[in-house]
């Protein structure tokens, strides 16, 4: 079934032609979600009773951290598809995601650091959550470095898959770091949606920003993948048909 699916939907040609129709919808989603999230988060949501307006950094910090972890999860899942079924699209997805993931991890660290200064009195502590996210950034950078030094495509894909899969162990460590260790970082705010520890007037803009960030990732990912597909498939007949 996986083989049939890979032929029908995951072939580079099918992927390229199908995604063409999705792009305008994704762009619309990004604009709507980010517009609502920014306006409601910055100007409508009430100030926090403890942190005052300082809490508004949550609307960029949490979405960037969530997206950074989600991207690594996508990469690790793609790595399984590459190693077990050698699906080309999964390899392209993995390599196209890395730089985006690194940028969002960097953003999560920077915005967290900026938020930490007024709330904790310091830019950085070697806290379990912060350190494990820093390790995630190094994993992304290691992945990008490995991809840039291996020239042969199949070797590159397999080596990168091993790195992506091995690094996936860091994801539960990041998520549970605030439970397993005593940390300065606060615990989960929205992971328990049935009983969130945040008021709906603050929660909805946050959810909207998270969706907006994820859609932005999807948009950039698809655009990067489409470029890579054309270059990898340059000698095939369908690329000629599509472009000429």
């Amino acid at each position, binding site marked *: 079934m996986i083989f049939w699916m890979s032929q029908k939907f995951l072939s580079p040609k099918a992927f390229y032609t199908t995604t063409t129709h999705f792009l305008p919808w994704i762009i619309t989603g990004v604009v709507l979600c980010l517009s609502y999230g920014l306006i409601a988060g910055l100007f409508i949501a009430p100030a926090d009773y403890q942190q005052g307006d300082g809490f508004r950094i949550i609307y*960029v910090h949490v979405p960037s951290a969530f997206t950074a972890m989600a991207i690594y999860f996508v990469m690790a899942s793609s790595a399984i598809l590459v190693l077990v079924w050698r699906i080309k699209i999964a390899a392209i997805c993995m390599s196209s995601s890395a730089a985006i993931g690194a940028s969002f991890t960097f953003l999560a660290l920077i915005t967290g650091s900026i938020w930490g200064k007024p709330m904790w009195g310091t830019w950085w502590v070697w806290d379990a959550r912060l350190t494990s996210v820093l390790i995630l950034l190094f994993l992304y950078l290691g992945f990008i470095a490995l991809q840039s030094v291996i020239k042969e495509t199949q070797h590159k894909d397999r080596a990168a898959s091993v790195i992506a899969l091995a690094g996936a162990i860091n994801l539960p460590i990041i998520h549970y770091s605030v439970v397993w260790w005593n940390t300065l970082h606060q615990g989960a705010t929205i992971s328990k949606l049935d009983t969130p520890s945040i008021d709906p007037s603050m929660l909805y803009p946050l959810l909207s920003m998270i969706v907006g960030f994820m859609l932005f990732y999807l948009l950039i990912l698809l655009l990067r993948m489409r470029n890579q597909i054309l270059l990898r498939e*340059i000698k095939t007949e369908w690329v000629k048909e599509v472009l000429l």
Partner: protein
Amino acid sequence: MNLHEIINMGGYGIYIWPAYFFTLGVFAVNIGLVVHETRRAKKILSHYFKRHYES
């Protein structure tokens, strides 16, 4: 809410606005990366097709 209140953000403006500008920067870098890659891909593809199909 006037402009001063927006900039000041209850005394946290000095932290909030840089965080949002960094976010804007990361979005801009990602968009720039895609634009650069698309231009590069177009250049390589047009060069390839010129060499192989226009002769």
